[in-house]
């Protein structure tokens, strides 16, 4: 039986000692080791279809890490993460297709635009609490396709999107999408950098600690006042820039950008990843990415039921695994785990 009165403050996860600087080197090495194992596994299998799936895992990892930073660690209920992804993809597409920039210049520029856009969304959000942020950001997400439709004249391509993005050229060599192995290597580098930046640089800094403290003790964030708001805006900008970077990279990989990236499927996928992986419980979210990307491929034969099933999985995992795989891992990790 449950007693009805509960603390109404939301507290996604306890402040973990993992993020107070202890074992920094050990954890970094463990992470790089995992990345190397991932690389080795990919190269050993060496099949184009497998490369494609691994590339998707890498790109999604960067996006979800960015989302986890906001929703899991900063406690900001942001649902505009795919908007940042779309801003990166569209930004890079417009810069390279209409602007004629090479992919290598367009991608970081698009990431910058994404960061600015993130800050722009953060300014109203930082003044709001909980669900208001969720709704405001989700409203931005829902409105973006119709805005893209209305701004066709600016080169967004309306519902058809933008076709023919240039491939990435590096050292006078051009990597076409067909060269899966090269794209796998690049995607892995992108993912490793993004994940390392978020979980090891940002979250283990003083800034990261301030975010955690603000999430766990709302009174503290009020005490921080203006600074607290600045921290949140900065977190938004970082998360958005990284996500936009991933979006831009993805756009050049697929060579097309359509409003489909704002559709139900992508959004649900991202939600399932976080729901299964667990928010604010590194490396839970990344495990969620692997499980969902692979599971999604397995489920491809049940195409019409896939989205329905994904929705059910979100509900099921939130109810039965309220802290996701990350929570499960942690429970096995130490015997004296905090109460579920």
């Amino acid at each position, binding site marked *: *039986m*449950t*007693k*009805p*009165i509960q*603390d109404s403050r939301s507290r996604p996860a*306890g402040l973990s000692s993992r993020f107070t600087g202890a074992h920094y080197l050990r954890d970094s090495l463990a992470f790089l080791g995992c990345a190397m194992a991932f690389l080795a596994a990919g190269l050993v299998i060496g099949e184009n279809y497998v490369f494609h799936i691994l590339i998707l895992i890498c790109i999604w990892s960067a996006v979800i890490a960015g989302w986890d930073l906001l929703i899991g660690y900063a406690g900001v209920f942001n649902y505009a993460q795919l908007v940042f992804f779309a801003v990166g993809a569209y930004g890079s597409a417009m810069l390279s297709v209409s602007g004629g920039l090479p992919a290598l210049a367009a991608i970081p520029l698009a990431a910058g635009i994404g960061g600015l856009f993130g800050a722009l969304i953060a300014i109203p959000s930082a003044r709001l609490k909980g669900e208001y942020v969720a709704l405001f950001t989700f409203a931005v997400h829902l409105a973006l396709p119709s805005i893209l439709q209305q701004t066709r004249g600016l080169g967004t391509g309306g519902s058809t999107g933008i076709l023919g993005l240039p491939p990435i050229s590096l050292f006078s060599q051009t990597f076409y999408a067909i060269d899966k192995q090269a794209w796998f290597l690049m995607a892995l580098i992108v993912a490793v950098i993004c994940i390392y930046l978020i979980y090891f640089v940002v979250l283990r800094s003083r800034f990261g600690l301030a975010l955690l403290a603000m999430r766990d003790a709302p009174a503290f964030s009020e005490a921080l006042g203006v600074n607290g708001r600045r921290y949140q805006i900065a977190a938004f900008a970082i998360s958005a820039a990284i996500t936009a970077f991933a979006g831009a990279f993805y756009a050049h990989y697929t060579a097309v950008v359509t409003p489909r990236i704002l559709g139900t499927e992508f959004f649900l996928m991202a939600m399932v990843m976080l729901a299964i992986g667990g928010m604010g419980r590194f490396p839970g979210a990344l495990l969620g990415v692997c499980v969902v990307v692979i599971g999604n491929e397995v489920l491809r034969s049940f195409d019409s039921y896939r989205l329905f099933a994904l929705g059910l999985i979100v509900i099921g995992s939130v109810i039965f695994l309220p802290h996701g795989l990350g929570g499960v891992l942690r429970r096995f990790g130490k015997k004296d785990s*905090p*109460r579920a």
Partner: protein
Amino acid sequence: MLEVDRINVSYGDFHVLHDVSLKVEKGEMVAVLGANGHGKSTLLKALCGLLPIQNGTVRYEGSDITRLASTELVQRGLVYVAEDRRLFRDMTVLDNLMLGAFNTRAWKCREKTLDQVFALYPRLEERRHQLCRHLSGGEAQMVALGRGLMSKPHLLVIDEPSLGLAPNLTAQMMETIHDLNRAGMTILLVEQNAALLTGHISRSYVIEEGVIAEGDLSAFGELQ
């Protein structure tokens, strides 16, 4: 009437009450004394089903109520009056009192109980159509106690009745509570102002850092 046997209560990771035991006999007026932040309110809320009890047992009128929700407890006559009044601020005095009689046992005789409450506090009858947000501290406390009485309590649990009241009102409030006790109602209350209780209570406990001991008023005086 109420037997509390070694209960433990935590807020999140913060363990507030350690093996707290106490007893209230029918017809008694028992006080729990203690300074702020030592777990008095937590104890009362846990007893009244507003906070979960981790372990230990609470028996009331002969049955185990440790895991029962407040709805069931109010139905059985275990009624809590909060220290911060907890009125429905955007409702009238009358609505607040009527909601006190929400449980089906009290609902049947709500008009009669209302007359009794108005007899006790004629002030409330005058102000019955007033929104509670516009009441003074003293009036708000009257509504809080009146709402508790509307629930037809067998055991009335009162959290710091003197909190936020002007000094001349606190003595009066304690007198009212004592009158209720003389009329046969069992009462458990917490207070940090021990001096107020002199001459009113049957027995007292002292709670310090979540640990309880039976004691008398003078002992508490020494602690302070």
